[in-house]
């Protein structure tokens, strides 16, 4: 097991290297804008642009720039400085991370809770009106785009512009360490909006696997033992059906940690998603590189964690 994890981590390093090379190449082949010109301000002179280009090292061949970047990355874990405002990229990302982590984990807890409860309720009463209602609602939640749902939620509930102004502090994220209560209220709507689609997908996924699980022979055995129905469903049934949910949750969490751009934009949350979004607009390659690398890292690590969890969840799986 340890050897397996170590091997996977070495692969992770290699993959991240490949990702950074690819990001670099894509940026030079398809630049979103000229970073030197953007930095120079509204009415730049040619000399100023040239000077900036020289200062940022953009006049060198891109292969040399890439080599430099990779050397700094591998030897010092240095992600460089922003073209736009000279901020250290690593610091910028670490500063944005808590907001994204708060958003991602809160949403995860919410969508797992709702998804599992609704999935179990539906799976144990397939075809009833309750099941139809839940699955119909899930379909709507899956179909609703986050930016639309987010704006509607703000319009309905936020304290400043809401029809029913009950949630204060929307659009002004506050760190957990600063003020836990305002942190909670400012994230309540973003959590709900981000979680709604996932909760719906998970409810449908769990319903399907749970219905299949409940028809298994071992469920009949559990009933033949004389267990109460609640225990048969929640212990034997849920345990048999939960594996795909855990797998999906790990992967989705990894993806969101790389930045939930839409949700962060709509609710003005200073996370990795908005950082990446702004960097792309500013042709700020070091920041783009940094956010892409972090996003990739989260996804790769999430994959690894899911694979390890899988062996813990299913005793029949043994890692080679």
């Amino acid at each position, binding site marked *: 097991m340890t050897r397996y994890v170590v091997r996977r981590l070495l692969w992770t390093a290699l993959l991240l290297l490949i990702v950074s090379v690819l990001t670099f190449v894509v940026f030079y082949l398809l630049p979103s804008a000229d970073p030197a010109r953007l930095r120079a301000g509204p009415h730049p002179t040619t000399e100023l642009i040239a000077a900036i280009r020289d200062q940022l090292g953009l006049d060198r061949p891109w292969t040399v720039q890439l080599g430099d970047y990779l050397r700094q990355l591998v030897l010092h874990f240095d992600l460089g400085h922003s073209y736009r405002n000279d901020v250290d990229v690593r610091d910028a990302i670490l500063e944005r991370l808590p907001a994204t982590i708060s958003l991602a984990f809160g949403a995860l807890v919410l969508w797992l809770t709702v998804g599992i409860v609704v999935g179990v309720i539906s799976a144990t009463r397939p075809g009833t009106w309750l099941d139809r209602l839940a699955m119909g609602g899930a379909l709507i939640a899956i179909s609703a785009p986050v930016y639309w749902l987010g704006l509607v939620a703000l319009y309905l509930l936020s304290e400043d512009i809401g029809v029913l102004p009950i949630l204060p502090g929307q659009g002004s994220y506050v760190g957990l360490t600063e003020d836990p209560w305002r942190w909670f209220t400012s994230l309540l709507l973003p959590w709900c909006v981000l979680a709604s689609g996932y909760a719906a997908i998970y409810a449908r996924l769990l319903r399907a696997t749970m219905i299949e699980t409940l028809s*298994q*022979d*071992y469920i*009949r*055995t*559990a*009933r*033949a*033992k*004389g*267990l*109460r129905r609640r225990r048969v469903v929640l212990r*034997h049934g849920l*345990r*048999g059906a939960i594996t795909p949910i855990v797998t999906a949750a790990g992967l989705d969490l990894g993806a969101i940690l790389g930045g939930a751009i839409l949700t962060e934009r709509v609710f003005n949350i200073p996370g990795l998603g908005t950082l990446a979004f702004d960097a792309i607009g500013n042709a700020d390659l070091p920041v783009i590189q940094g956010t892409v690398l972090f996003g990739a890292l989260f996804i790769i690590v999430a994959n690894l964690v899911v694979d390890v969890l899988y062996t813990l*969840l*299913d*005793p*029949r799986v043994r890692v080679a």
Partner: protein
Amino acid sequence: MSALSALPRPLLEVRDLRVSFDTDDGVVHAVDGISYTVHAGRTLTIVGESGSGKSVSCDALIGLSRAARTRIGGAILFDGRDLVSASEDELRRLRGNRIAMIFQDPLSALHPYFTIADQLVEAVRAHRDVPKRAALEHVLELLRRVGIADAPRRARGYPHELSGGLRQRVMIAMALVNDPELLIADEPTTALDVTVQAQILELLGELQREREMAMVLVTHDLGIVAEVADDVAVMYAGRIVERAPARELLSAPEHPYTWGLLQSIPRLDRPREEELVAIAGRPPSLIERPSGCHFHPRCAFVRESHRRLRPELAAPADDPGHETACLLAGGARRALWLALRHGATPQQARAAVPGADDDPAPAP
């Protein structure tokens, strides 16, 4: 009948049990009015092909087939209480406690994600308020009793780590944790190797004698009947077509379907060239069952009237313990079986036996 009435009250008495399912294709009459009794310490074997209703009738005994679209009729008297009209909670308290069940495929019948100990301890604690440690002691003792060496280590393992035979021993131990009075075994050896089958049957027999347990054993294998059964009921298309003490059914079977089952078993005392006789045709649909005698489309001795008349289970006056549901006359049946036993094909037997072609109720 005086000898029978002298026996104590049967532990299990099934009266005119009917089980049907509503499906999109129509009503499936899985069990169509079967009756039998089982006494403490005795074994009834229910024999039949897949789809004859034998497993469904067992699930119905402890309320496992109570799906939304299932209808159960008749009476199931267990120790004098009717289980058909019993509440789900009452049934739940009997299941795994006074009535236990083991299933065909022990790999799929055990939960893949829980340890053996976990699953057995849970079975104990479902009915008895004992601490986990005490339950585990009891479970380990039982695992040793069913022949699992190194029980503590095995108990910590998962079902997939055991062989098929060991898994079925685990299932048996799990069924016995609460000392049931009745054990329902649904094809307990079908998924096992032949050598293991014999061991498992022997184990079941021993445990049954030890505990004075009544047993209902469902199988499609008449070889098992010879080894363990006291009484046999042969099921076809949801009905019992022949019922007799095991020894008698094997030596003097009365129903053409039973003949077919017996003749499809390879026998060492027969020349190898002799062909096995398979029963022609397929088991009938339980949605639209054949008219008259349900077996008539596959019976080599069918008469015109058998397509219209339905035979009732009945015993001859001189042998009240051996009931058959067949429209052929008793004498003709005995002569036919004799001819078949001596190697005649069904056609030859039919031609050779005088009166075998008489129709009891020819069409008007």
